[in-house]
Each structure stands twice: as structure tokens, then as C-alpha cells.
């Protein structure tokens, strides 16, 4: 009897100590006091399911850090942008929501999901650390800031040809048209959502985008559906330079391979952000909130930044919005997470863009 009592007391003390310790460890500084409840509830759910377009290679440290902090399992579905959108939309219609968080680089597609009412509002305690343009009605959160870059082959594209401004880029395409014939690449806006996004951002923010496309078309440039496909061609020398490549990848590749270089234009660098939303009807709603907060926290942002995904904050890691702006020469242009994102979803506007694209390209 006595022994049993002692055991019960001991066990109770251990549990209490354990819980207290966990709570004390996990509630991050500056979070509301009742955040411990969210953590407990999330642990009870035990799992968070994410639909994403981010490679598992880039997201792995974030996922590991989250698991280490809370012991909650993370199921990452790398479905691509269209795949994530398709699955989220279909599952909502079938009333079988499988995702807790949708997190992709397709800002426009996710804004469509938000406008269709498929996102749950949640005021993250991290909002105060984010720029105002990065949060849309507590529904959609920017989680990174990623520039468009030029990727070039250092052996085949002379250093003094590397453009420093947008005007330089057009100039080199025009002046060196013969040597560059068929050797320049860019995104195909007809095939890639990111390509479309960079192109329409350029139309909105610059005056000379169509001159650029004409010069590119005259140099018989080739268009691709992904940054990786362009990298392959630039590495092999089939192309010597590609513009409007995803800059965070370009920087990583240039670091890995001494033959490659990444460059930015100081006067104007367009960007996109990977955006995240909590799914309405998420099977693990508390774990979803916890993960979103973690992704935006300094720990989560640092884990992403260490893997080459620049932090949307200015105070985290070595690669963040402030250091990135220095790196590109001061012309970093954030894309606000707001209704403008779906501007080009309007069929007429979209069709006009494609018409003009083809005309300028001369094909």
C-alpha cells in the first residue's frame, strides 16, 4: 500500500515536472500565456500535413527543427504548385480535407484558394515580426522573399557582359545578338506559374519588359518550364545565360558549381514569396497553427534561410530580406500578399498578356 502510494506520488511528480518543463521550454518568448494550451492540443493531434511545392531538400531542416521542438510528426507532400492547388480544391469539394497547411510558391493560386474560402483565419503571434505587406487578412502569410536572377556560365559568358541593370540586360541581348543566338534562356510564362508571375510583375513594375522580350526573341532565345531545366542547359553550355531564374536556386547553384555565376540588376529585382495558409476544416487545426507560427519564427526562418530560402524577416540568419537587398544592389521589390495577386486571373487580361508575349517574342 505504502509503496504503491509512493509510486503514484512519484509518477505524478514526474509527469508534472515533465509537463511543466515542456511547457516552459516551448512557449516562445513574447507569445501569449495561453499558448501552452495550443501546444498541448497540437501534441494531442500528433501530426501536421502539408501540401507544398518546396523540395524536401530545402524544407528538411525546418521540418526536423519543428519535430525536435514539439515531437509532432510532419507529413510533407511535395505536389508542386498545380498539384497542391488541385488537391486542396478537390478535397474541399469532397469534404475530405487532408491538408493542414498549403505552402507553395504560387501566390496567385493560393490567393484563389483563399478567395474561395478554403483558408482559415489565424492571427499568428509572429505577425509583429513580419513586414505589413506579407500578411493578408490573417489568412495568407508570406514566408520568404525570393528574387529573380541571372544564371550564367562563367566559362562561356564573359564577365564584362554580365548585366548590372535592366537596361544592360536589354543592351547585351541586342549588341551580342549574333554570339548569343540560341544561347539565352528564360522562363516560359505559358508553361510555368513562376514564369508567368515574374513576367507579369515585370509588366507592372517596369516600362521596358516588352523591349526585353523582343530582344530575347530576336536572339532566338529558348523558354523553359523550370529553373532546374535552365540550370542543366547553362551547366552544359548549351545556353550561356538565363534570366528570370529563381534567385535563391541560382545562388545555391553558383556556390556548388564554380562554372556557374548568379547576378542581379541593381535598379530592379522582382521577387515572389512562398505563401502559407491554414486549410479550412484542417484535420489537425492546432498543429497547423503551431507549424505556421514556427515557420515564421526566428528558428523556422533560420532553418529555411540556411537552406537558401531567404527569410522574409530582416532580423534572421545570414540570408534575409535586408541582406538580400544589399546583395542585389538595393532594388529588391517585394510582391505584396493582397488582392492584386489575382489581377491576371481575369481571362481577358491573361489572354492579352499571352498575345503580347507571343508578338514580342516574334513566334
Amino acid at each position, binding site marked *: 500500500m505504502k509503496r504503491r502510494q509512493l509510486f503514484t506520488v512519484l509518477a505524478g511528480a514526474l509527469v508534472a515536472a515533465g509537463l511543466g518543463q515542456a511547457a516552459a521550454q516551448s512557449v516562445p518568448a513574447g507569445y501569449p500565456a495561453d499558448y501552452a494550451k495550443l501546444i498541448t492540443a497540437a501534441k494531442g493531434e500528433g501530426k501536421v500535413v502539408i501540401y507544398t511545392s518546396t*523540395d524536401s531538400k530545402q524544407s528538411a531542416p525546418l521540418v526536423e527543427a519543428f519535430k525536435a521542438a514539439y515531437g509532432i510528426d510532419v507529413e510533407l507532400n511535395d505536389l508542386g504548385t498545380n498539384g497542391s492547388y488541385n488537391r486542396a480544391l*478537390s478535397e474541399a469539394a469532397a469534404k475530405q480535407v487532408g491538408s493542414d497547411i498549403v505552402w507553395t510558391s504560387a501566390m496567385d493560386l493560393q490567393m484563389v484558394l483563399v478567395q474561395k474560402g478554403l483558408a482559415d483565419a489565424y492571427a499568428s503571434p509572429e505577425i509583429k515580426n513580419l513586414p505589413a505587406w506579407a500578411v493578408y487578412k490573417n489568412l495568407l502569410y508570406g514566408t520568404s522573399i525570393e528574387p529573380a536572377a541571372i544564371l550564367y556560365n562563367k566559362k562561356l559568358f564573359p564577365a564584362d557582359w554580365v548585366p548590372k541593370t535592366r537596361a544592360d540586360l536589354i543592351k547585351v541581348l541586342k549588341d551580342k545578338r549574333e554570339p548569343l543566338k540560341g544561347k539565352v534562356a528564360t522562363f516560359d510564362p505559358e508553361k510555368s506559374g513562376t514564369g508567368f508571375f515574374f513576367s507579369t510583375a515585370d509588366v507592372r513594375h517596369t516600362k521596358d519588359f516588352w523591349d526585353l522580350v523582343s530582344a530575347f526573341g530576336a536572339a532566338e532565345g529558348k*523558354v523553359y518550364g523550370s529553373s532546374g531545366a535552365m540550370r542543366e542547359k547553362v551547366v552544359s553550355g548549351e545556353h550561356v545565360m538565363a534570366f528570370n531564374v529563381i534567385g535563391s536556386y541560382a545562388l545555391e547553384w553558383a556556390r556548388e558549381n564554380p562554372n556557374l555565376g548568379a547576378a542581379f540588376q541593381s535598379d530592379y529585382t522582382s521577387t515572389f514569396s512562398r505563401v502559407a495558409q491554414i486549410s479550412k476544416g484542417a484535420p489537425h487545426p492546432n498543429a497547423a497553427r503551431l507549424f505556421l507560427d514556427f515557420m515564421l519564427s526566428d528558428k523556422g526562418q533560420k532553418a529555411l534561410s540556411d537552406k537558401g530560402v531567404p527569410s522574409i524577416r530582416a532580423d534572421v540568419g545570414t540570408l534575409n530580406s535586408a541582406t538580400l537587398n544589399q546583395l542585389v544592389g538595393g532594388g529588391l521589390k517585394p510582391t505584396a500578399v493582397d488582392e492584386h495577386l489575382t489581377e491576371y486571373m481575369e481571362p481577358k487580361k491573361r489572354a492579352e498578356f499571352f498575345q503580347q508575349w507571343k508578338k514580342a517574342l516574334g513566334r
Partner: protein
Amino acid sequence: MAADATAAAHLAAVTTRPGNAGAFRIAVITALAIAVMTPVGLIVYQSFLDGPFFDESAKASLWAFKYVLVDADFWRALRTTALFAFGLVAVAVPLGAGLAFLLTRTDIPGKAILEPLVLVPMFLSSIVLAFGYTVAVGPSGLVSIWFRETLGGVPWNIYSLWGMIVIGGLSHVPNVYLYVASAMRSLPSDLEEAARSSGASMWRVLLDVTLPMVLPALIFAAALNLLLGFETFGIPLVLGDPNGIVVLTTYIYKVSTVFGTPTYHVMAVVAVMLVLITLPLVFFQRRLLRHSRRFAAVGGKGARASLLKLGRTGKIVAVSLVGAWLFVSVVLPIGGIVLRAFVDAWGEGVNLADHLTLDHFRKVLSEASLYRGIVNTVLLAVIGGAIAVGIYLLVALAGHRNTGRSGTVLDYMVLMPRALPGIVIGLAFFWVFLFVPFLTPLRPTLASLLIAYIVVGLSYGLRILQATLLQVSPELEESARVTGASIGRTWRDIVIPIIRPGLAGAWALIMIVFIREYATGVYLMGAGTEVIGSLMVSLLTSGAMDQIAALSFISVVLTAVGLGLALRLGARIHD
């Protein structure tokens, strides 16, 4: 394939009385109809709506048809597709027929090695093949660089319609070879010998004697490859896309971005169009063979064909021709894949020795999803393949020596899923598993992929099983029937025991088909159900070429294992 079986059934019908397997036939065909027509019907239904079928505001509409029919890009894609498909046939049929002639009717040396080698391109997914060609003969490919350095220029460009046609054609040669070789094998050789001994050259014998006799097989192979040409996705995706060469299957991809969001009704319309184009082909194929006797099984034990003597020079010429074809169709693409899998940079001005690495494999094995993809692919191929053989056997038995109308229905039904682009049929299956209540528990499991694979692989799987079944000579079944056995009993006691070794071979072949599959899983797979082929397609959109190279290499190795197994188990590849 299916049509062969029908022709054979005609032959058998003369002697076999109608049996008592009617209930079995109806049950199997009904089950099959549900499995096939649910996704196909969903696609057709979706094509007549103005929004996603699950959207309550979607109404019946011809809008998507109108959109597609006035879209200049659609017509351009259709024209390109037709050029590609006919070009592919023009390349594949003469080459395949020539190879079949050399390997079956002449005494060319090294047959034992050549025969399986000739089939290799057929077993590789076209994504893997196209990728291998990029590294070998692309603008910065090893062979291209060598050409440029020694001859000052490269006379080809694989990123053109011509390049696609030649590569597509070469990779479809085995499909022609299979049919023509099986027809040629069963030809009596007395006519050829007569021509030869009255002084005709080898060339004349081939053109004037052998070819006319196998004409039905040639036309059949041509129609089949035309159909395959219309469906090709991997080659245009890798080789056509960068230059803006769009075919119908890649047009579907493009439509999504043009609208901003995936536009299911337009995708469905394009899929329906593809079916409308290919169905007449199937019809034509069937008509053609209706009255021509099945060529592979004529006359039971025909006289053993004696081989034409090539002579010394003839042998050298023949072996070099086959060798050249093998070099271009097998060595180049596989060499490209192997190379790319072990280097991190290649092309102009790159010393490969400096870039050797095992990193890509480390990356693949350390990424949980890619590692699971390999495990899942093996599971699907080995276990799923065995289940598939069982199901195909049931279906093949239902169609075996079946002359009735249900045989015709079966033939068309089996080809339906093949005629639809893999991406779209995969999407339809995704919806079926999402919206059909009792199927939803299967969705996050490999069972969903297996069901889709079995349906998509029906035409190929049945062809293999039917060929195996046809090994059983009708006399055996007839004797059982005459002595009073039911059809069920005949199958159980006579047919299945005889074909048991054939089933093992069929299993190995289906394994290869499942390893090769890539389009079907693109929308269907999720965390935990990744497969190599579909992973490659999705990696292609993010452009992780290192991982694609390693996965391609692994896929080639798995295929080689499967093929080795198939040969050991005595698969009837040659039927």
C-alpha cells in the same frame, strides 16, 4: 493484340461448341466495365461542363469544346501530333520489319544475345530515354561535342520535330519487331527457298516474298504505333517543350497555365478528342484482321522454317546494321543516363573526370520521399505485378475463344484507358478515390495506384496473357470438351496448368511495365505513395536534374533485373 485473339477465336469457333462459361464472362466483363468506365465516364462528363464537376455552380456546356476548337494552339498541336505519329511509324515500321527479317529468317549470328537486346528500348520509359538522349546527343551532348570538335559541326538537333520523330521512331522499333517477327516465325520457308534457288537476291526475297506474306502484321503494327504516337508524352515533354513544339498531350499541360488555374473541362475535352482520333484506328485495325487468319498460330505444327543463308559478307553487313541500330537505340540513351547519374556537370569545356560523384545517389537515398518512391516502385512492380497477372488472366480467360459480341466490347474497352493521356486518367482516378465513398480509404495507399496501373496497363497485360493462352493448342481443349468437361474445368485442369510457366514470364513483363509507368501517378501519388516514374515528372517541373538522373539510373537497373527475370522465367516476349 486483342484483335489477334479475336481472329484466333474465329478459327476456334469452327470447332468449339458454345460453352457454359457465360456467367463467368458476364461477371468479369461487368467488373472490368465498372473499373474502366468510371474514370473514362468521369472525363467525358467533365468535358461537357463549364467548371470542375465537383463545383456546384458548374453547368452543362459546350464551352470547353468551343474553346478548344477555335484555339489556334490546339490545331497546331494536333498537326504536330499527326506529323509526329506518322513520322514515327515511317521510321519504326521499316526498321522493325528489317530487324525481324534478319533475326527470324536468316542465319545472322548471335541471335541469342541480339533478340533480347533489340527489345530494350520498349522497356524504358520515354522520359528516361529522352533524358538519356539529351546527355548523349543533345546540343552539348558528349557525341555532339566530339562531332563538333572533329567535323566542325553537328548535323542534327534533337530539340526539333525531326529529332523527336527519329527518337520516337527508334524507340518504337521493338513494337513493330514483336508483331512482324511473330508473323515471320510462323511462315513456311519453302517460298523463300524457291525464290532464292531461282537466283533472287536476299533483298528481292525480302521485298517480293516475305513482306507480302506478313503484310497484315505490318499494317497492324503500323496502326498500333500510330496510336502510341498520338499518346506519347515523355519525348515531347523533354525534347519538344524547350523549343515550343507542343503536341496534344503537352498541350493539356499548357492549358492550365494559360488559364491560371487547372482547367479540368478543357483538359477533359482534349482527352476526349484524343479518344475520338484513336478509336477509328482501333476499328480499322480490327476490320483489317477480321478475315485474315491469325498468323502466329496457323496450322498447328507447321514445317520447321529453314533459315536463309546470308553468306560471309552478308553476315558482316547484317551484324553491322543491327549493331548500328543497337548503338543508337540502346547504347546512346543508356550511356547518357549512366554518365549523368555519376557526374555533377557535363558538356562544353567540362572535364568529366573532375566531376565524378556519388552525390546524386546520396541525395536520393537521404530524401525520404525519393527513397520511399524506390521502395514503392519495387513493391508495386513485384507484388502488384503478381496481382495484375491474376486479374489479367481472368479477363483473358473471359475473352478466350470468345466469339460473341462481348469479345468486341472487351476489345474496345481495354483500349480506352490507353487512348487517354496518362496524366488525365490518373487525375480521374484521383477523383474516383476521393468522391466514391467506399473507395476513400484506399486513396492514401498504394492500392489506389495499383488499381489505376492495372486499368491503364490492361491492353498490354492482356496482350501478354492472350499470347500465353494461345500457346495451348485448341485440340487439347477440344478433347477435354468432347469427353464432357465444362469450360471451367477445361481451364482449371488443362489450360492453366499448361500456361503456368508462361504466367511467371508474364509477371516479369508486367513488372517492367509498372516500373516504366510515369504519367498515371502524377496526380494520384501523395506522401507515402510516391513512385519513381511520377517523381521524375514532378522533379522535372522543379528541375532537380541530379535526382532525376539518379532515379533514371535506378529505374534502368530495376528494368534490367526485371528483364533478366523475364528471360529466365521464359517469358513469351516473342508472341
